């Protein structure tokens, strides 16, 4: 029983929240930056990506869908500057 408890304890990992500033660059660079960062993150971590290319609102979710990552939220945060926020929960890499 003690062994089992110890094993369970060692596998619990605190999920980390990350941020990526992909503003003022144009697609597909925000997708590439997101891809390259996500590939380094463990499953379950979350990532907020800020972009000013409105195309990112379509492209980053598409990349996440085909690569098994979850889109938590994707929305325009500032219509004047085209700023968008895409929140991702990292799946299995």
């Amino acid at each position, binding site marked *: 029983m003690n062994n089992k408890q110890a094993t369970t304890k060692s596998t619990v990992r605190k999920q980390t929240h990350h941020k990526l500033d992909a503003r*003022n660059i*144009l*697609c*597909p*660079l925000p*997708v*590439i930056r997101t*891809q390259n960062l996500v590939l380094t993150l463990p499953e379950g971590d979350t990532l907020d990506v800020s972009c000013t*290319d*409105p*195309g990112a*609102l*379509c*492209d980053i979710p*598409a*990349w996440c*869908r*085909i*690569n098994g990552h979850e889109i938590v939220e994707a929305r325009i945060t500032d219509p004047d*500057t*085209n700023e968008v926020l895409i929140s991702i929960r990292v799946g299995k890499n």
Partner: protein
Amino acid sequence: MKTQRKAISLISGGLDSMLATKAILDQGVHVEGINFYTGFCVEGHTHAIRKKDKAKPKRNNALWVAEQLGIKLHIIDIIEEYKDVVINPKHGYGSNLNPCLDCKCFMVKKAHEWIQENDFDFIITGEVVGQRPMSQRRDTMPVIQRESGAEDRLLRPLCAKILPETLPEREGWVDREQLFGFNGRGRKPQIALAGKMGIEDYAQPAGGCCFLTDAAYSNKLADLWTTRGERDYELDDIMLLKVGRHLRPRPHFKLIVGREEGENRFLEGYRKQFTHIIPISHPGPLVLVDGNINEEDLEIAARLTARFSQGKKAASVRVEVHSKKGDTTEMTEMDVTPYRIEDIPTEWYL
């Protein structure tokens, strides 16, 4: 137990690579996509900049194709390495500054490195013999195989039947009989195959997928190299060549004039790097000054800025000049007479 064979497919986002990938997926091979970003790719940049293009769908076609096919897509940034392809193409340029054959050799070489690193078996492309004048000819196709190092691990499913057998065919990883023998510039066989495969929606890029095939773009790049005295570029250089109206009144400086709100907003991102001019008495463009200018040059730049403002017919237009002095910017105001259109020499326009 039969080994699951794995292929990487070069996905451009167009129909041919989509069909080639589907043909191999349908034979039970595990396929993933790879897409290379050179900095000159047409989609991505342009759609996001101009306000008038806001209504156009803002999808990345390569990602869209991958999603339709249900495959993973790896987008690889090759901006730095690709410079050598553009600057020193072994096989030369096409009708503009497009090094198509060197480009294809380079991309297949990168894909070959990728399959070796990721334990994949072969490479697929959507090439068709005779489809393109430079990179897709019967005599250049073996060049790509040889110079990329991929040799017979490179399979072109759409024209495989009229090419020598490749490793995946010889080993029975794919059935050659189920591949195709397309040949020539026509699109009918591809469109018919798309219908047969149930593919109804696909991208049809009118001007190709690379800015280097565009004459106006190539002229601007050639001008950049000539005036700088060296054939080199940074990502910002090639991005700015895609935006605005470019005028070179003197060999040592040029102006980049935003044509509409979307471009002005994009150019705003470069304000800290360049001396720039904005009309303040009338609505007008943001103008970046690329080069070092003296008082006389500044007047030319300010008068051109006024010309492209809504005060172009006014006697005087007030502009704000933000001169870059090292790491700081100095702001002054000037009242200038806009150029008359007939006074702007046509050779100033790039």
